């Protein structure tokens, strides 16, 4: 205990001057500038770029955390995420795809964080709501809709924008429908029921090609529409040659960025409102919360439905970006994936959820493949590594270890919510006291 506090104060002594006052402005500007220059001068896909890229993404969280004027944070954010990163993306499309993916999962993690972190409801079927949004756009934007009723045809791709709202509403409705019966129950049943629900949604998607072909079964839905790009012709008129795929990459990047920003604002405001306080009270002590007049089921339902609606929106975006969805896209592993992000970052912590989403996406898309490549080289050089062993195929092991290790050693996460941190450590302290008592006897 004592060692950790003293090391913390050392850490604070180093970081305190850099996180507030004039030094902070200089430090942040320099940090972002250095990363930007490094990125833009070396856009190849390799380990050093990965590291710089991660540092670059982290700079945003550091800025978010430090005590500098709001306008400065905005300027930094706009420059880094609005200009440098997309421009870097035109040099190396792989990274902009990673950033977009990370953005999608950031929004999902923020949504799940409302459910798990704020309200303390363990939802293991979160991806079901994501699937609902994705299938909604997948079915309505493709000829699949004619399978349901030959008289209907696909909607205009421009309907993508209203469908973002429809996805939100569908997520909300599904969340309420599932939540109403199960949120009355004690917390740990919820985990199982939502897990079962996630499986049910997947089974239904897999089998609802008969009697009416609604989901096209295990074949999935192909050629999902993307929204028309509004300003493309103007760009081409300027004489810039850009192929559609590149432009769509940028489009989705900006779209996801905007959605993430909105999500952060909404989530942060909810957290610091009467609603967020009520969630926290329920999480801490249900009986006491209800005795203050807080309607337990209604507040839980609200958290559950709000989380689900974020997933619904992102489902629409995801379907349109991927162009193809099928039932395995929405399996249990993906729910666990998002849960791992929330837990890694810290339950209830908004920057934590974002950090978790970035780290886990990076692990998935960059770090594991890279380790795999290293292992293959080592194997070729004769190291005793089983031939079938491919780290990219062992995500369960990775997430499993991550969950267990975090729960045992750092349940409050890497970037804990200030108050939550104490709640979890308290238990350990109580444990230590108990042990000491025992020893004394």
């Amino acid at each position, binding site marked *: 205990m004592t060692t950790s506090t003293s090391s913390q104060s050392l850490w604070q002594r180093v970081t305190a001057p850099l996180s507030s006052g004039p030094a902070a402005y200089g430090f942040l500007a320099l940090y972002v500038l250095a990363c930007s220059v490094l990125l833009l001068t070396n856009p190849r896909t390799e380990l050093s770029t990965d590291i710089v890229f991660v540092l670059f993404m982290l700079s945003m969280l550091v800025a978010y955390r430090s005590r500098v004027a709001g306008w400065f944070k905005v300027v930094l954010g706009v420059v880094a995420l609005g200009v440098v990163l997309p421009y870097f993306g035109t040099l190396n499309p792989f990274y902009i795809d990673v950033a977009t993916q990370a953005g999608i999962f950031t929004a999902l993690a923020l949504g799940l964080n409302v459910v798990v972190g704020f309200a303390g409801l363990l939802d293991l079927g979160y991806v079901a709501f994501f699937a609902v949004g994705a299938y909604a756009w997948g079915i309505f934007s493709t000829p699949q809709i004619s399978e349901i009723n030959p008289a209907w045809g696909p909607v205009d791709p421009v309907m993508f924008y209203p469908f973002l709202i429809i996805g939100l509403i569908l997520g909300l409705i599904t969340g309420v429908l599932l939540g109403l019966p199960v949120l009355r129950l004690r917390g740990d049943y919820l985990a199982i029921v939502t897990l079962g629900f996630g499986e049910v949604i997947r089974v239904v998607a897999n089998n609802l090609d008969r009697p009416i072909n609604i989901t096209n079964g295990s074949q999935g839905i192909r050629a999902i529409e993307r929204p028309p790009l509004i300003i493309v012709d103007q760009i081409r008129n300027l004489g810039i040659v850009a192929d559609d795929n590149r432009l769509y990459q940028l489009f989705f990047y900006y779209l996801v960025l905007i959605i993430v920003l909105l999500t952060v*604002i*909404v989530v942060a*405001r*909810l957290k610091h*409102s*009467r*609603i967020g*306080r*009520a969630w*926290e*009270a329920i999480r*801490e*002590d249900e*009986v*006491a*919360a*209800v*005795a*203050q*007049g*807080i*309607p*337990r089921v209604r507040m839980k339902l*609200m958290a559950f439905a709000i989380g689900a609606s974020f997933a619904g929106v992102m489902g629409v975006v995801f379907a349109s970006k991927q162009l193809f969805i099928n039932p395995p896209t929405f399996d249990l592993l993906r729910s666990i994936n998002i849960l791992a992000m929330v837990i890694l970052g810290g339950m209830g912590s908004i920057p934590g959820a974002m950090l978790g989403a970035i780290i886990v996406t990076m692990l998935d898309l960059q770090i594991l493949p890279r380790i795999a490549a290293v292992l293959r080289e080592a194997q070729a050089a004769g190291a005793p590594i089983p031939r079938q062993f491919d780290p990219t195929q062992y995500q369960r092991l990775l997430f499993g270890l991550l969950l267990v290790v975090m729960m045992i050693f750092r349940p409050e996460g890497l970037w804990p919510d200030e*108050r*939550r941190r*104490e*709640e979890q450590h*308290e238990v350990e302290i109580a444990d230590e006291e108990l042990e000491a008592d025992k020893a004394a006897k």
Partner: protein
Amino acid sequence: MALLEATNITKIFGGLVAVNDVTFTVEPGSIVSVIGPNGAGKTTFFNVLTGIYKPDKGRVVFAGQDITGWRSDQIAALGMRRTFQNIRLFGNMTVLENVLIGMHVHLHASIWSIIFRGRTMVREEAKARNKALELLSFVGIADKRDELAKNLPYGDQRRLEIARAMAGDPKIILLDEPTAGMNPHETAEATQLIRRLRDERGITVILIEHDMRLVMSISERISVLDYGSKIAEGDVQAIRTNPRVIEAYLGKGAAGQAA
């Protein structure tokens, strides 16, 4: 008309009759006490009144409404608040936030006005904060408003629980052993505070207490539970001399000596 009327309340756990056919009436503006030996069913009775347990038999009428079978939060919203025998604060929230939670039913900002930071929401929050600070100074811990509730000393936690209960503008507050574990000085202060609740704020108080000095000095009426049943009721004088009460507290034979 009585503010609270509980008739023939019975609560059974498995084979144990924790509260047995208890009838109990509270007039508005009074301070009444419920006493009885350990395990007599006092807390269980409170839990039935506040809707945490559903009674197996009986009826509760509060502020003119039959609240039997209502949910706990509905009863709280109607104006019945309580404290807990084993303090149940939101330990990881600040003192001020704890009081704000108590105000939940009086805050109405819609989800839209929260998301868009509407004027109503901002104003409502500011008002709530001021009111919470006022309540904290009423109970005397305003200077600790930003501390985490769990870091407060024991006596202050009890005060905070009272402030949180007051935050809902209740008609009645149920206090479950508010001075348990306090030293005589703290007990005296708590007694003052309970009196001021009624005298300055007009809140009716029901009190469970083991400290007989406190009970006798403050109560207008006293009810005595023993093994779940109400064995006596009356003013201080009547209870002090009631042989069944003395027997319940001191055991058989004691009644004769005391009389």
